[in-house]
């Protein structure tokens, strides 16, 4: 979008330059306008095809998300019903925040929203002791957080977003994540709502210790350390899988809308530039005619 809004101001400059200048300059502007027109047309072609690509990717992501939703709900059900989430909230130190983004940009404010949520969280903490660790999934979140909170970033996972996320990807992230020592944490991701809307949300991420301290855990039968650890590991992977699917879907839908807007803006610019181009050409012709006629009149 930014990329396209810049040339608009240029076109305005050109227009003002075109009207009050001399003939030889007018010829040059005409050329400049036609070049600009060509480049904007090319940009429009690119954004249009990017929109088509992301539309196809979005359709797939949405289909897969529909499969992953009950999966995520299933994981969250235990958190809610055992009251483990409230237990985690009281424990404030040694937190881990997982940012689910991707490597790819040009998709609206999807990644910025995730980074903003985390930035707000981190800014509330004291500067001298970085307590919260950040796990960046996707290069975009790292790029957005690096400048101010580089010492908080613990792990960065990249090569995210080129292909739809799989359970294997989630397991790899979960594997790294479990090795980090944390008491409680959360995953910040974009929950997909409709094609044009998503919401930045967070789900709690609990360590085996916090899970064992859940208030209603006494009701649960046959739980020991080993079962809880395996359970927690799988839960982390499943949650990551679910959130990655949600994020991927919101990203594709957001990219689709962004590219649609870009194509529309480009079309608008092409219209304006064509008008300027024709007007300038006409002005050149008229001026030349006036010069010829006035020259002929002077000879009489």
């Amino acid at each position, binding site marked *: 979008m930014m990329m396209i809004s810049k040339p608009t101001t240029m076109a305005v400059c050109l227009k003002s330059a075109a009207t009050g200048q001399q003939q030889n300059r007018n010829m040059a502007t005409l050329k400049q306008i036609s070049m600009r027109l060509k480049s904007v047309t090319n940009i429009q072609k690119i954004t249009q095809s990017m929109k088509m690509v992301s539309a196809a990717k979005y359709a797939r992501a949405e289909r897969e998300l529909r499969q992953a939703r009950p*999966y995520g*709900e299933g994981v969250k059900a235990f958190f809610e019903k055992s009251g483990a989430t409230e237990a985690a909230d009281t424990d404030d130190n040694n937190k881990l925040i997982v940012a689910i983004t991707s490597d790819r940009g040009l998709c609206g404010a999807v990644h910025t929203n995730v980074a903003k949520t985390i930035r707000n969280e981190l800014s509330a903490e004291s500067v001298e002791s970085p307590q919260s660790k950040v796990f960046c999934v996707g290069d975009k979140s790292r790029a957005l957080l690096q400048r101010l909170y580089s010492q908080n970033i613990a792990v960065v996972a990249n090569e995210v977003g080129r292909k739809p996320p799989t359970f294997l990807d989630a397991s790899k992230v979960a594997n790294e994540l479990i090795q980090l020592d944390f008491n409680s944490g959360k995953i910040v991701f974009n929950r997909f709502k409709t094609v044009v809307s998503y919401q930045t949300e967070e789900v709690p991420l609990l360590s085996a210790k916090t899970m064992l301290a859940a208030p209603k855990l006494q009701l649960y*039968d*046959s739980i020991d350390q080993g*079962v809880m650890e*395996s*359970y927690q590991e*799988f839960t982390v992977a499943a949650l990551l899988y679910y959130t990655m699917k949600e994020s991927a879907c919101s990203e594709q839908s957001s990219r689709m809308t962004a590219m649609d807007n870009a194509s529309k803006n480009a079309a608008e610019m092409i219209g304006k530039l064509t008008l300027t181009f024709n007007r300038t050409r006409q002005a050149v012709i008229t001026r030349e005619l006036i010069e010829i006629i006035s020259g002929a009149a002077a000879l009489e």
Partner: protein
Amino acid sequence: MYERERGDCGLRRRSTSRRVSVASCGARVRSPLPSERLGIMASFLRSTKLVSKLTQGPTKCFSRNYADQMNFTFAAANQIFYANKNIKQVDVPSFSGSFGILPNHVPTLAVLRPGVVTVYEDEGTSKKIFVSSGTITVNEDSSVQVLAEEAHPIEDIDGSAARQVLQEAQSQLSTASGDVAKAEAAIAVEVAEALVLAAGN
């Protein structure tokens, strides 16, 4: 297989939960103790008048058992089988032993081991689904979540391909060096063995 009748459902539930954990089952089972029911049965034999008074308790209990809903979710990363459906029973393989879950099961957490999950649907049909790994959660509101990493109906498993996978896994185990690689290969063998077993059924 597990035809549920009025009389034995309480007993059945006790036996399933006992299989889960022998030590702590008594206090948590909600259905009436068998001794209570025996008492009621005896009174039935003695006098029908008494029964009309006494049955209030048990009928309430039975009707509760009958109206019990099991909010069952069975999802894998590749496919969803049940989403908040009501079913009769589900048998799951776990690392603490295989066990059956009926409505109102004692809340528990368990880890799935590779094997076959059998779901007895309300209509009386049963479905067998192979799972590789995952978790089982039974919550106190009788909702059950079985989440698997990967799951397929056993009809879809190719027996010869499964045997081939097993052979490959075994050869990998014999050549594996290092603790991590060995553990990984051992898991692969375990899954492949379960796969062959499931394909055989």
